[in-house]
């Protein structure tokens, strides 16, 4: 009897809790969190007859504030571009033995296009595309040689906008020291660091300054890495070290680990006696993806995954899909510096116009951006 009472009490409390949660979510329905998840079982009826855009994430998942998040945003943009016709969904990979089953699940679901994220999925995507020559695929951060006719391979020459980021960082540094670090030593990471390094050197040669780069040396290809893209404490400690060494512009290339760097920058800001430290965000516009730290972001060195993925899905839906390799550059807008936001008035207009000159120089080819991690 006692137990029955206790059980019913628990049930009632659970019900009340759920009721409370339920009403609070109903007030915020339409918020981004609600739309970020694929809709529940009821949606299968409403998606009938629609073009289905399907994405397989890497192990980071769609909340990685990096390429999975950008890709998923691109998918959602494709859906909102034509919600009557396009419907998107995703599958999360928890380990890499999930890649092939996830892709196969989507093939069985008759997806109009399957977008895979990251070079680790290159093999699984290639195998699936060969087994399903009539299926359409897109892959982020990988290119095939030779190119595959039914895979839109999306690659980004981020050395180009990182070069501009480096130039800007050198121009904004008061201490003559800037710093960068990576999550893991992967080409998609070091390409940013190469570009950043080159940009600083270019600034030095133009202005006769000696701004130095901590955390990366392009010629030796050695530098600082935190070891993963998740442990923010490592990013915070490393950034703290850089600040102690005198760096006042930090450029983390490490996904979520960059949040740790932002924490360190914030701490330095609140401490008397420390130099004023700022940073540049990577991959996405930091003032949107990590808005709480926006006041420390001079700019963000972005990678147009979002637009490229959106284009892949919309072209597949409209029947104008093209396979092969796509490389995002400053010229085609596939990579770019984000707006300055809070720094719009703080970046000297002379520096802003110099940046424009640098951009034109890179586009025209008069400024060479060398990298040992070719896109």
């Amino acid at each position, binding site marked *: 009897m006692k137990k029955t009472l206790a059980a019913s009490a628990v049930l009632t409390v*659970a*019900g009340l809790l*759920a*009721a409370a*949660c*339920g*009403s609070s*979510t*109903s007030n915020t*329905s339409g918020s981004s969190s*609600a739309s970020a*998840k*694929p*809709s*529940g*079982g*009821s*949606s*299968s009826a409403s998606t009938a007859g629609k073009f289905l855009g*399907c994405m397989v994430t890497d*192990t980071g998942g769609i909340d990685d504030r990096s390429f999975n998040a950008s890709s998923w945003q691109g998918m959602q943009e494709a859906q909102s571009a034509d919600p009557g016709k396009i419907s998107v*969904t995703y*599958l*999360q990979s*928890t*380990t*890499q*033995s*999930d890649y*092939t*089953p*996830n892709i*196969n*699940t*989507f093939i*069985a*679901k008759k997806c109009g296009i399957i977008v895979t994220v990251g*070079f*680790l999925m290159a*093999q699984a995507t290639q195998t699936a595309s060969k087994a399903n020559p009539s299926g359409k695929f897109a892959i982020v951060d990988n290119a095939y*040689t030779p190119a595959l006719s039914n895979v839109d391979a999306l690659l980004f020459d981020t050395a180009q906008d990182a070069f501009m980021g480096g130039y800007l960082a050198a121009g904004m540094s008061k201490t003559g020291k800037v710093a960068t670090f990576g999550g893991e*030593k*992967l*080409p998609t990471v*070091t390409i940013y660091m190469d570009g950043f390094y080159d940009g600083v050197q270019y600034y030095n040669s133009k202005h006769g300054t000696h701004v130095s780069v901590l955390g990366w040396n392009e010629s030796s290809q050695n530098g600082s890495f935190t070891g993963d893209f998740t442990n923010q404490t490592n990013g915070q400690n490393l950034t703290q070290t850089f600040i102690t060494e005198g760096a006042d512009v930090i450029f983390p290339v490490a996904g979520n680990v960059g949040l740790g760097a932002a924490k360190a920058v914030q701490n330095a800001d609140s401490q008397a006696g420390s130099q004023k430290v700022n940073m540049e965000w990577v991959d996405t516009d930091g003032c949107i993806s990590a808005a709480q730290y926006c006041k420390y972001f001079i700019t963000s060195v972005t990678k147009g995954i979002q637009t490229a993925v959106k284009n892949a899905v919309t072209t597949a839906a409209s029947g104008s899909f093209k396979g092969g390799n796509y490389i995002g550059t400053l010229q085609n807008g596939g990579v770019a510096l984000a707006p300055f936001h809070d720094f719009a008035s703080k970046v000297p207009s002379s520096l802003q116009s110099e940046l424009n000159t640098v951009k034109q120089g890179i586009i025209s080819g008069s400024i060479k951006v060398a990298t040992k*991690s*070719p896109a």
Partner: protein
Amino acid sequence: MSESPSAPAAPPGSTPDRKPEEKPSFSRAILDAVIEGNSVVVTILAILVAIVLGGLLIAFTTQSVLHAWGDFFSSPGNAIAQAWDAASGAYVAIFEGSIFNPHTVSALFQQKSMSIALHDGTVSSVFYPLSETCVQATPLILAGLSVAVAFRAGLFNIGASSQWIGGAILATWLGYGVNLPIVIHVVVCVIGGFVGGAVLGYVVGLLKARTGAHEVIVTIMANYIMQYLLAYLLGKPKLLEKPGANGNLISPNIASNAHLPLLFGTHLRINAGFLLALACAAGVWWLMNRSTLGFEFRTVGANPNAARSSGMSVTRTWVLVMLIAGGLAGLAASTVIQGTDFSLNFQSYGTYGIDAITVALLGRSKPGGVVLAALLYGALHAGAPLMQASTGVPVDIVQVIQALIVMFVAAPPLVRAIFRLRAARAGGTGQVLSKGWNS
């Protein structure tokens, strides 16, 4: 950590471990509970409770259900129906993704003839879910056996992950580095996988036997060492890096001669690795229950002091057990590399090491139990993608259910309380699983 919290601090020099009325150490108590206190009934009930709790979690993290419960007092029926639909929908999807999907059969009847259906893969799609379950279960069986064998001899093998990597490195290297005829190449790579894992296990056993280093510490450290060694090897073009990978940490593909043969045609991924895993389970059963060596393993596991005084070499047993355990984990890598992935990268080891421990615990460290537990987890893994694709429930729920099962299996009194079962007789007759930290 090494003793039960309730045991009084032992004076220096005393050996509380050897008193007959000694309180069991903390970890020993857990393992005893798993092995001796648990009937099959309790295990099944634990799975049931985990599934129910998982269902509640699914229901009450779904937006539409929460919405309906917001109006609970105006339409309680709708709220309960919504919750039921969400949870049962997810489980049905898991079932369809892992065992049997009725849609595939209706597609089969739409084909003109059996030969067309056989040719275009409609027949295969009926068996695709089962095939996936077996594919997912294969490395779990082998890695689970690895942990189970060590448990039975009183050792905690937390290092299945490192042994997996050891086996994977050797199997991959033999897979692309040498040219051999078809059957021989497969066998050579499988043996390579075993040896690669066995070397890691041997080192752990040797360190414990010679220096007394605790295998838990050593195997955990070995995991880190092997993870970074793998990343290092994959980053060096002359070692394991794929030509033209530009620093992307991935190995070349193994030769097609080294692929484990597919069992039922190209549409299904089930391969000879599954048979290998079953054979190993049978082998481990024979080893542990029918051979002299297995008797020594179990005796050392039950009481190393008694084993020593009856003339068995405890240190030799430790080394041998870890060698076999390591080899089995290496074989798990072999089945993944040669059966499904065909190349190795810096994250290939996934969660096999941890999953292996849960499989061994759920399987009560018996070969048959390990196979069943691995099949259950394999089915959960295989069904997860379809569940997320058709209901939107995140695949992480599968991890939660897995964890809940192990939690309830490890806490039989909880399950008995829920179902009002009588406690198992004290000092059950089941075999001893492990001796714990102080052995």
